């Protein structure tokens, strides 16, 4: 109890120092701020963005001063928070959720000298850039591993919301799986949440009970990994390396590594070379990182590493034709690849997925 109290006191003092006292060195440092949708302790999406922020601090040391605001709901609250950060003298502000798009744009128009960076959106301005990561590249590798490792020929997929980013991930995984086993089956469960550990665990259990023996997730907590470990299945982690939650279950994990991008952009803001850009980086740029391949035979590991190398080198594109939709119509011709804009607005499943996109 005493420890908790002293922690609380320490925290209170910390807040007072942060907000209450004028900082002498503030003028020389570049102030950078991050706005988070979830808590930094989610061990998923927000956690990884915060790791990126910490990397900026480590890399640029006393040239920068970083702050963050966590648990900011999308909507009017976000605008107020972003406005406040802009007024507080931050030179560059990263807003890390899709729903911050309009609020960021509004505040950006009011503060033309501040640089704004919005993750996963598509609206830009002279002082507002966007950035995202090609997570579907990683999912293609997962699909190949799943097809090799599954004994039942069924992979389970815990999905969050039916938005293009998630649907393209499902398709990419399935295309990877079909490249190994054309008859691979997939069972998809939508939990309609990014973060609800108990529900994610329930979904994993349900999928395992129904015969899926490899579990993939597009939700943020390690609950599904733990459930797979307990249920004797294999699983892929999400956002962070979740090996400690599934020492016998984790095959690999798609790790979001925002550090290279954040360091690059803050440096540009420092030396005055920042321009508004649209960045969609993947394995090649070190933004999509695969956790070590574990709990699999050497030949599967070799296959995964080769695929990863090919995607990194640009010789393999997960969405390269021929690709058919569920009706059997050819969507992408042999020798062509799906353009980025079509991946970013994907709302259809590829052939071989025996389910419907929710709400369609």
């Amino acid at each position, binding site marked *: 109890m005493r420890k*908790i109290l002293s*922690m*609380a006191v320490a*925290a209170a003092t910390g807040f007072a120092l942060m907000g209450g006292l004028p900082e002498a060195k503030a003028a020389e440092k570049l102030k950078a701020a991050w706005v988070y949708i*979830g*808590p*930094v*302790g*989610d*061990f998923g999406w927000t*956690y990884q963005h915060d790791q990126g922020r910490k990397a900026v601090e480590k890399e640029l040391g006393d040239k920068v001063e970083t702050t963050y605001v966590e*648990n900011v709901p999308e909507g009017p609250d976000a605008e107020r928070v972003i406005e406040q950060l802009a007024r507080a003298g931050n030179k560059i502000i990263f807003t890390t959720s899709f729903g911050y798009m309009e609020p960021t744009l509004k505040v950006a128009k009011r503060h033309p000298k501040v640089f704004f960076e919005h993750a996963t959106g598509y609206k830009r301005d002279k002082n507002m850039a966007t950035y995202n990561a090609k997570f579907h590249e990683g999912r293609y590798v997962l699909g190949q591993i799943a097809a090799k490792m599954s004994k039942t020929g069924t992979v*389970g997929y815990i999905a969050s919301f*039916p938005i293009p980013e998630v649907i393209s991930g499902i398709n990419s995984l399935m295309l990877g799986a079909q490249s190994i086993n054309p008859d691979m089956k997939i*069972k*998809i*469960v*939508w*939990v*309609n*949440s990014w*973060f*609800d*550990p*108990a*529900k*994610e*665990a*329930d*979904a994993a*259990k*349900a*999928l395992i*009970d*129904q015969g*899926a023996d490899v579990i993939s997730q597009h939700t943020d*907590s*390690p*609950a599904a990994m*733990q*459930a797979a470990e*307990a249920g004797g299945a294999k699983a892929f982690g999400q956002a*962070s390396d979740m090996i*400690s*939650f599934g020492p016998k279950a984790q095959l690999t994990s798609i790790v979001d590594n925002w550090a290279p991008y954040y360091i690059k952009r803050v440096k540009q803001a420092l030396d005055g070379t920042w321009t508004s850009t649209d960045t969609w980086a993947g394995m090649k740029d070190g933004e999509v990182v695969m956790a070590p391949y574990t709990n699999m035979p050497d030949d599967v590991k070799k296959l995964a590493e080769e695929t990863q190398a090919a995607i990194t080198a640009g010789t393999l594109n997960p969405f390269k034709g021929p690709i058919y939709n569920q009706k059997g119509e050819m969507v992408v011709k042999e020798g062509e690849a799906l353009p980025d804009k079509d991946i970013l607005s994907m709302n259809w499943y590829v052939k071989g997925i*025996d*389910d*419907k996109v*929710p*709400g369609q």
Partner: protein
Amino acid sequence: MLDAAIIGAVLASVVAAATTLLLASLGELVAERAGTLNLGVEGMMIVGAAVGYATAYSSGSLLLGTLAAVLAGVVVSLVFAGLAVWLAANQVASGLATTILGLGVAGLIGSSFVGTRIDAAPALHLPVLTGLPIIGEAVFGQDAFVYASVLLLIAVTYGLARTRVGLVLRAVGENHAAAHALGHPVRKIRTLAIMFGGACAGLAGAHLSLAYTPFWASDMTAGRGWIALALVVFSAWRPLWLLAGAYLFGAVSILQLHVQGFGLGIPSQFLSSLPYLATIGALVVISALKHGQGAPASLGVPFVPDR
């Protein structure tokens, strides 16, 4: 499509899902029967989850962790009791403040435990009975929290209806002025009821972080405290209907995941809303059929003893 093994596994999941809700809502039911509406359930629960996990991780003892979670729930509930009972502040505002405070404090306590894990509370397998088909795993293969929730339900049902303590507690909730006139210490009784609610919420939190998903993550209760609160209202403040509500909610929320897995093409957004729709529907029907009691008459009304 369905065989005995799947049905058994589904039932076991349903029991586990319902237990968190049952634990938290039983405590809230007692607090509300004493006339205090504590909207701080989510806050007490998350602090219980954080303190329980921190203690269990540091000490290696699940029992210590559980006790610490219960204690933490009580401590947070005292914040609410201090505001709402002793300072006669607005109960809705005090409860909301308790939840917001709890979420923040829990994040602070848990911050150094993010990314760690412990072994889940073991299932207490009873040798022969667990092997029974279909119901074996669901009834006899659960962890101690499940059995604790059943014992608590029996204790609360019996205690409220059949004991003197229960009678006094209900009297305080129905008409605090009359109870005061009879010489009952209204504020002390209410404080004790709120503390009981805090203990139950803490236990529910421990169920989440020690048994259900044995790790710590901020906001891991994900709104279950609010569902527990709603269940109390819809059960018309009766423990047995609460049991029905919690299990119905648990059952539909597990079943909808299975229905999705079968790929029947029913929109998942609709399926996700089903637990709420089904529970509201069923409990509305129940309370319409029996023109049972409404809310405790003094619920939410601050009590200031006249001297």
